[in-house]
C-alpha cells in the first residue's frame, strides 16, 4: 500500500454534494473477505467534475459502483465507511430508497456501449423506461421527451434512431444513447466510468465535448473515471489519483499536472512518451515489400448465396519495410489495419504480391508456408487471449522451436531461458501458467514466443492497447531494445498515435481499407498533408 502525501481530501470550493469517508470495500469468497478498497475519501461539489484516475485494478470502478451499491450484496461487503449523497448515507439505505436514487438523482454511464444496452429493445423503449420508472410517464408521453434528448446528445436523424435497435447504431451513437438515458431525468450527479475508452479518438473527442456542454446546461456534478490523462487534463476540475485501493492524492487539475506530490502520481504523469520518431535509414536493405494487397470479403445474399458485392477490408495497399526499422500503420477501428497485418502473414486469404527478403511468399504452398513462418511472427493485442491457459510458459515459448526442428529438450530449455531473459522475465518461473502473470508480463511472454524463432519480421497488432499506460511504455522500450539487438523489422499496427510516434521510422495512415498518407513518421507528425491525418493528429495531440 502506498503512503498518502499531504491531505488526501482537498474539499471542493462549493458545498459538498457527495462525500465519501473512509470507504472500505471487500469481496466475499466463501466465508473470507478480501479487501480491495482500503479507506477512500472523496468529495464532489455541485457542478464540479472530479476525475478519478488510476490504473486497472486500482479499485476506481469498484468505488464508483459502490456509490449506487451496484455490486451484488452476495459479492461485496462494506466493512467501514460512509457514502453521503445530499446528506443521506447510501450504504444504509434500503432497496426502494436506492432505486429511487438510481437513474434519477445519480445517473451512470458505462465503458462498453455494446453490452450496456439491451439488444432486444428499441432505443425508444429503453429511454422511455427510465422516464416511466422515475416520472411515471407512459410510452406515448415519454416519446417526445426521448426524441428531445436524442437531439440534445447530438444524434443525427433522431426520429429514425428512436426506433432503431442497438445493433443498428455505431459505437459512438450507442454511447450517445447511453448518455441520453443517464441524463433523461436530469440527475445532480453523473458517474461516467471510462465512457470513451471503447471509442475511436475522433469520436472520443466529440463525446467529451458533449458531456462538457451538457454539464454546463444541466448544472450537474460529474465523477469521471478514466486512465487517460489527456481526457483528465481536458475536462476535470479536480483530480483524485487512486492506487492499490486508496486515494493517494487529490488536487486541482492544473496543480496536479504542474506539481504532482505523490511518487505514484509522478510516475503516472511521467509515463507520457517523450522521444521523437527515429529517422529512417534509406541505406538499409528492404525486408518486406507488398504490392496491390487486396482483401475483399464477399457479401452473399439469397437462397443461392449469390455474391452481390464485397466488403473491401483492404483495397489496393502498397507498402515496404526496411530491415531493422518500424513501419507504423495507424487508423481507426474498421479501417482494415488488422486485416492487412493478417494478410501480410498469410493468415487471411488475400490478393497481391508479398516479398519477404526477396522471396515471394504469396504463392507458397501450405507446407512451404508452414516452414517459412519462422521468419515472420505476430503479436496480438490481448495478452490474455493469445496465450493458451492450459500450457506452462515454457511450453508456450518452446512450442515453435519444437515445430521448427529443435528436437533436443535440453537445447530447447536453454534457448527458452535465454529468450525469457531477453524479454525481461525470470527463467526460474518458466513452469508457471499464464494466469499467474500480469498483463504486461503476459505480453512479454507473447513477445518471447515470437522472438524465440529469431524471425526477421514481427507484426505487432495493437500490442500495447490493453495495457496500462506505464506498462505500455515499458513494452515499447523492450521492443526498441530487441529491434536494436536483433535487427528486427516491425510492422506496428495501432490506433494510438502517441505510441506510434515514439517507435516508428515510417508511418502509414489507413482509412476504409486504403492508405491515405505515408512517409517518414517524423515528417507526418510535423506536417500532416491529408485532411484525415490532420484530424487524427489534432484529436490525439491537440487536447492540451
Amino acid at each position, binding site marked *: 500500500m502506498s503512503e498518502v502525501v499531504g491531505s488526501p481530501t482537498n474539499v471542493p470550493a462549493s458545498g459538498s454534494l457527495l462525500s465519501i469517508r473512509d470507504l472500505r470495500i471487500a469481496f466475499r469468497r466463501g466465508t473470507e473477505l478480501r479487501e480491495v478498497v482500503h479507506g477512500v475519501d472523496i468529495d464532489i461539489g455541485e457542478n464540479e467534475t472530479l476525475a478519478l484516475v488510476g490504473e486497472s485494478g486500482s479499485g476506481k470502478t469498484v468505488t464508483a459502483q459502490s456509490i449506487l451499491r451496484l455490486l451484488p450484496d452476495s459479492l461485496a461487503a462494506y466493512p467501514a465507511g460512509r457514502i453521503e449523497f445530499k446528506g443521506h448515507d447510501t450504504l444504509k439505505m434500503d432497496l426502494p430508497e436506492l432505486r429511487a436514487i438510481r437513474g434519477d438523482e445519480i445517473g451512470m454511464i458505462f465503458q462498453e456501449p455494446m453490452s450496456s444496452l439491451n439488444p432486444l429493445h428499441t432505443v425508444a423503449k429503453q429511454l422511455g423506461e427510465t422516464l416511466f420508472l422515475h416520472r411515471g410517464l407512459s410510452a406515448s408521453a415519454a416519446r417526445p421527451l426521448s426524441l428531445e434528448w436524442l437531439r440534445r446528445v447530438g444524434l443525427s436523424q433522431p426520429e429514425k434512431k428512436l426506433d432503431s435497435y442497438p445493433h443498428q447504431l455505431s459505437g459512438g451513437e450507442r454511447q450517445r444513447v447511453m448518455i441520453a438515458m443517464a441524463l433523461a431525468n436530469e440527475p445532480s450527479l453523473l458517474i461516467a466510468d471510462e465512457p470513451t475508452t471503447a471509442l475511436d479518438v475522433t469520436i472520443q473527442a466529440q463525446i467529451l465535448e458533449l458531456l462538457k456542454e451538457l454539464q454546463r446546461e444541466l448544472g450537474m456534478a460529474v465523477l469521471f473515471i478514466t486512465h487517460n490523462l489527456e481526457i483528465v487534463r481536458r475536462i476535470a476540475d479536480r483530480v483524485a489519483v487512486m492506487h492499490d485501493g486508496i486515494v493517494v492524492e487529490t488536487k486541482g487539475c492544473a496543480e496536479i499536472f504542474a506539481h504532482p506530490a505523490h511518487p505514484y502520481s509522478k510516475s503516472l504523469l511521467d509515463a507520457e512518451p517523450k522521444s521523437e520518431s527515429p529517422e529512417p535509414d534509406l541505406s538499409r536493405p528492404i525486408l518486406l515489400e507488398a504490392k496491390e494487397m487486396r482483401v475483399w470479403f464477399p457479401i452473399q445474399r439469397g437462397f443461392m448465396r449469390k455474391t452481390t458485392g464485397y466488403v473491401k477490408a483492404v483495397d489496393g495497399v502498397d507498402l515496404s519495410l526496411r530491415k531493422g526499422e518500424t513501419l507504423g500503420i495507424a487508423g481507426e477501428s474498421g479501417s482494415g489495419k488488422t486485416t492487412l497485418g493478417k494478410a501480410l502473414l498469410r493468415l487471411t486469404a488475400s490478393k497481391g504480391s508479398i516479398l519477404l527478403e526477396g522471396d515471394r511468399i504469396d504463392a507458397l504452398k501450405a507446407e512451404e508456408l*508452414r516452414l517459412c*513462418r519462422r521468419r515472420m511472427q505476430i503479436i*496480438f*493485442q490481448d495478452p490474455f487471449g493469445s496465450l493458451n491457459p492450459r500450457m506452462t510458459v515454457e511450453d508456450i515459448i518452446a512450442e515453435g522451436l519444437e*515445430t521448427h526442428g529443435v528436437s533436443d529438450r535440453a537445447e530447447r530449455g536453454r534457448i527458452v531461458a535465454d529468450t525469457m531473459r531477453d524479454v525481461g522475465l525470470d527463467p526460474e518461473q518458466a513452469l508457471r501458467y499464464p494466469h499467474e502473470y500480469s498483463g504486461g508480463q503476459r505480453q512479454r511472454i507473447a513477445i518471447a514466443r515470437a522472438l524465440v524463432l529469431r524471425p526477421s519480421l514481427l507484426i505487432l497488432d495493437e500490442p500495447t492497447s490493453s495495457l496500462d499506460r506505464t506498462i505500455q511504455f515499458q513494452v515499447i522500450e523492450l521492443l526498441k531494445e530487441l529491434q536494436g539487438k536483433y535487427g528486427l523489422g516491425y510492422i506496428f499496427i495501432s490506433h494510438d498515435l502517441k505510441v506510434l510516434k515514439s517507435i516508428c521510422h515510417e508511418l502509414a495512415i489507413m482509412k476504409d481499407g486504403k492508405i491515405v498518407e505515408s512517409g517518414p513518421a517524423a515528417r507526418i507528425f510535423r506536417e500532416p498533408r491529408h485532411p484525415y491525418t490532420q484530424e487524427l493528429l489534432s484529436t490525439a495531440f491537440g487536447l492540451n
Partner: protein
Amino acid sequence: MKARRGISSLSRERWRRFKANRRGYVSLWIFLALFGASLFAELLANDLPLLVVYEGRLYFPVVSRYSEKTFGGEFDTDADYRDPQVGTLIRAKGFMLWPPIRFSYGTINYDLPSPAPSPPTRANPLGTDDQGRDVLATIIYGFRISVLFGLTLTLLSSAVGVAAGAIQGYYGGKVDILGQRFIEVWSGMPTLFILIILSSVVQPNFWWLLLITLLFGWMNLVGVVRAEFLRARNFEYVLAARALGLKDSRIIFRHILPNALVATLTFMPFILCGSITTLTSLDFLGFGMPPGSPSLGDLLSQGKDNLQAPWLGVSAFVVLAGTLSLLVFVGEAVRDAFDPRRAS
C-alpha cells in the same frame, strides 16, 4: 509439485463443486459400488460352489472344471454340484462353500414350488422367469452387461463423434458443409430396420450390436464439438499457433481439443444413459442379444407377457429406473462441476 498448481487447482475446484452436489456425489459412489460388485457376478450368483473341500483337498469349480469321478461319482462328465447325489457324495468326505445365490443366469431351477414363472421364495428371492431361471441372478448379470455395453458404446461413439466434430469445426467451409449434410442423411437411417435385416443374416451378439449402434449413434457429440472448434479456431492463441507454423494435428490436439473436452465430459453420463437404454430396448423387442443371454430388456418383455407375475416386470423396472436415475444425477453433478458460470 509447485509447477502444476495452476491446472490442478482448477481440477481441485471442479472436484469440489462436484462434491458440493451431494446427490450426484452419493449417486456416483452407489453406482461405482454396484458396478464394481457386478464385475464379480460369478462370485455372487453361480450354480457352482466357490470352494469344494473333498478328502482334505481344495477344488475351485468356478475356475476349473472337475469330472464327477473326482468326487467318487459314476460318470466322466462335468460334476453338477446342484445334483443332490453329487452333493451327498461331497458332503460325505468334505463340504462345499456356495455363493449367496445358488443360480447363474442360465440355471434352470427344476425344484420349483409352483409352475414357472414362480413367485419369490427363499431360494429365489425375486422369483423365477417363465423358464424357471432366477430373476436376481439375471439382474446381476444383466446389469453388468448393460453397463459394459453402455460404457464401450459411449467411449467409442464419443471418440468418433469428437473426431468428426473436430475435423468439421477446424477446417470449416466445404468439409463442414459436406460433413453436416452427410450427418443429416445418416441420422435419418432407420437403425431398427437395419438391425432386423442384420438379425436375419447373422446371429447378433454383443460386438455386432455394438458395431451397429455405434455406426448410427456417433452423431451425439458432433454438434457440440464442432461448435466448440468453430469458436476456438479464431482464438488468438490458436491464430498465434498457426502463425508459429504448427501442424494442424498439433493445433487440434494441443490447443483446441482441451476446450472441447469440457463439453464432451459434461455430456458423457447422459450418453451412457442413452446407450444403456438402447441395448435394453433392442433386447425388449427381441433384436438384441442372443437368446439365453442375461438381459434386462428380455426380463421386461417377459414381464409384459406375464402380467400375472409382477415380480418380473417390477424387478427389471426398478433396476433400470434406478441405474438411469443414478447416472442422470451423476451427470448433473458433472455439469455443475464444469459450469464456468459457477466457477467464481
